[in-house]
């Protein structure tokens, strides 16, 4: 492992501006680390030529002065983002060979700011999964290890998490529909923020569940999350749900001063059978915020229990609609047809061959809950419950709570393959603490805060008021300073 790829965005930015290092040097360092990290299976499409070209352009721009903070920073891009002329498959066989003719708004924003793309990152197929085990590229692997087992980096942004934790890139893009940034960030000891719904344009990001999907940065620390988030967000006329509100300088809001802030501790997140270690981490995090001057308040979010079942109606319903476009006509895979096969056979065979099991399962569950006779009982009921879940949050914010502190995940990273025989619902429980945030459209951030008795990372989640990512990042920054987490995985790959 080279030293340059270990840099944070902030440190690299400062070194680039001082002329101590060039973007091309940073980029070459990352490319060489990626080459020797095949065992992690984090990068699945490498783009060294694009990277070198962008790095040279960035170096010219930096020499010219007044380059933005992200200029020259080498990044990994989740495979869910469409990148012009570069394979963008959402880790699915059905998009085999797809090379978009356009660039997603988020990646375009990053490139406009001078960022460098090293390649595309592994993920769960169509972002459906919590362990990166549903990918057509095979499992991504967590760089952290405590015994002989290979551990999951979490999902769906598993490749992003693995790559950032292993220092293959300075930071990565992720997306989060039910916890897909925050859960893998927690499993790999990095920082991940899902901004308020509408902050980042969804244009050009392969859609899973459009009312829940949001992009966000996955970084080595909170400062980097602030820097990169600012470059990613902004209003986009091409996404009708994009928020037309000013983007502040998030980094400037990191003062670490949280005196007088009211932090809510929701009693419903204390679940039956929660491991003692998670309980302790949560209590420790609460104490740290209190020591930093925050006021701690017990709060209630009464409909929490129903968030996961509501999510598993709404997300599959939207997915069944969004994924109807994969029909073997416009892009990607088309099944070989037999003599006499018509268009229905083409659809059915193409989708059976192209989609993996979890995607098929969710598309069919979504089809069922939207079908005549069940729409009211399932889909409409779930949308009403979603209204109640959002109302729970509105109530506590109206009562003066500034941010909510919860565990990020119900456990530390588990071994790859350990959940294979469990029923699908067991895997869904990974999202129990994160999914409420998507349903309510709020910003949420996961920051590493401790280790379990095996030495595996545990993350704490902060949930903030809508569109107040700056304040949320500052609370996370205060916790990061107090937790003092600096460990790096030992290289075995």
């Amino acid at each position, binding site marked *: 492992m080279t030293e340059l790829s270990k840099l944070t965005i902030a440190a690299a930015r400062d070194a680039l501006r001082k002329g101590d290092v060039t973007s091309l040097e940073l980029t070459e360092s990352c490319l060489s680390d990626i080459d020797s990290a095949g065992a992690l299976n984090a990068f699945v499409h490498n783009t060294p030529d694009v990277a070198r070209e962008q790095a040279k352009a960035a170096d010219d721009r930096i020499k010219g002065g007044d380059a933005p903070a992200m200029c020259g920073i080498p990044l990994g891009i989740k495979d869910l983002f469409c990148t012009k002329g570069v394979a963008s498959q959402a880790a699915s066989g059905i998009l085999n060979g797809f090379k978009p003719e356009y660039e997603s708004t988020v990646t375009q924003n990053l490139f406009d700011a001078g960022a460098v793309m090293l390649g595309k990152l592994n993920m769960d197929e169509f972002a459906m999964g919590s362990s990166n085990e549903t990918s057509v590229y095979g499992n991504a692997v967590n760089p952290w290890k405590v015994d002989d087992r290979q551990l999951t980096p979490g999902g769906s942004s598993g490749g992003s998490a693995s790559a950032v934790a292993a220092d293959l890139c300075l930071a990565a893009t992720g997306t989060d529909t039910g916890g897909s940034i925050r859960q893998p960030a927690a499993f790999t000891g990095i920082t991940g923020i899902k901004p308020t719904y*509408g902050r980042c344009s969804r244009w050009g990001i392969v859609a899973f569940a459009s009312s829940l999907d949001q992009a966000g940065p996955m970084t080595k620390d909170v400062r980097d999350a602030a820097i990169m988030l600012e470059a990613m967000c902004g209003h986009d006329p091409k996404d009708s749900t994009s928020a037309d509100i000013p983007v502040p300088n998030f980094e400037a809001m990191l003062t670490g001063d949280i005196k007088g802030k009211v932090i809510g501790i929701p009693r419903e997140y204390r679940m039956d059978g929660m491991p003692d270690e998670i309980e302790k981490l949560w209590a420790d995090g609460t104490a740290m915020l209190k020591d930093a001057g925050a006021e701690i308040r017990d709060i209630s979010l009464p409909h929490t229990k129903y968030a996961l079942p509501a999510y598993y109606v709404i997300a599959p319903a939207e997915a069944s609609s969004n994924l109807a476009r994969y029909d073997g006509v416009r892009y990607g895979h088309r099944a070989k047809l037999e003599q006499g096969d018509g268009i229905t056979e083409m659809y059915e065979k193409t989708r059976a061959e192209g989609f993996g099991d979890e995607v098929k399962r969710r*598309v069919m569950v979504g089809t069922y809950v939207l079908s005549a006779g069940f729409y009211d009982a399932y889909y409409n009921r779930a949308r009403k419950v979603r*209204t109640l879940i959002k109302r729970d949050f509105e109530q506590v914010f109206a009562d003066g709570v500034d941010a909510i502190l919860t565990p990020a995940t119900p456990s530390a990273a588990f071994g790859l393959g350990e959940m294979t025989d469990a029923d699908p619902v067991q895997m869904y429980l990974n999202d129990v603490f994160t999914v409420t945030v998507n349903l309510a459209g709020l910003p949420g951030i996961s920051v590493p805060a401790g280790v379990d008795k095996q030495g595996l990372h545990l993350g704490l989640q902060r949930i903030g008021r809508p569109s107040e990512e700056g304040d949320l990042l500052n609370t996370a920054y205060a916790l990061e300073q107090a937790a003092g987490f600096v460990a790096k995985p030992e290289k075995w790959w």
Partner: protein
Amino acid sequence: MSIDKDTAAKVAKLARIRVEDDALPALAQEFNDILGFIEQLAEVDVEGVEPMTGVTPMRLKRREDVVTEGGMADKVLSNAPDAREGFFAVPKVVE
């Protein structure tokens, strides 16, 4: 409510995903596991609650109904498994 093999077959058909007959019982079981979990929603009192249509309060923007980008049929077709003479090609639909 329990999903049987026939219902699973019907859902697969609606979703346009081919599922072989011998895979249907296992699929029906998975549906039952998932729907059993979802059933909890029936406990919630939703009387008088509006179903959510948008998570953030926003009025969708309006714009002139004009072509903003176009004239790029070749790019649109460039990823098609089968494209001919400026069209997507599919198996015969009408006799």
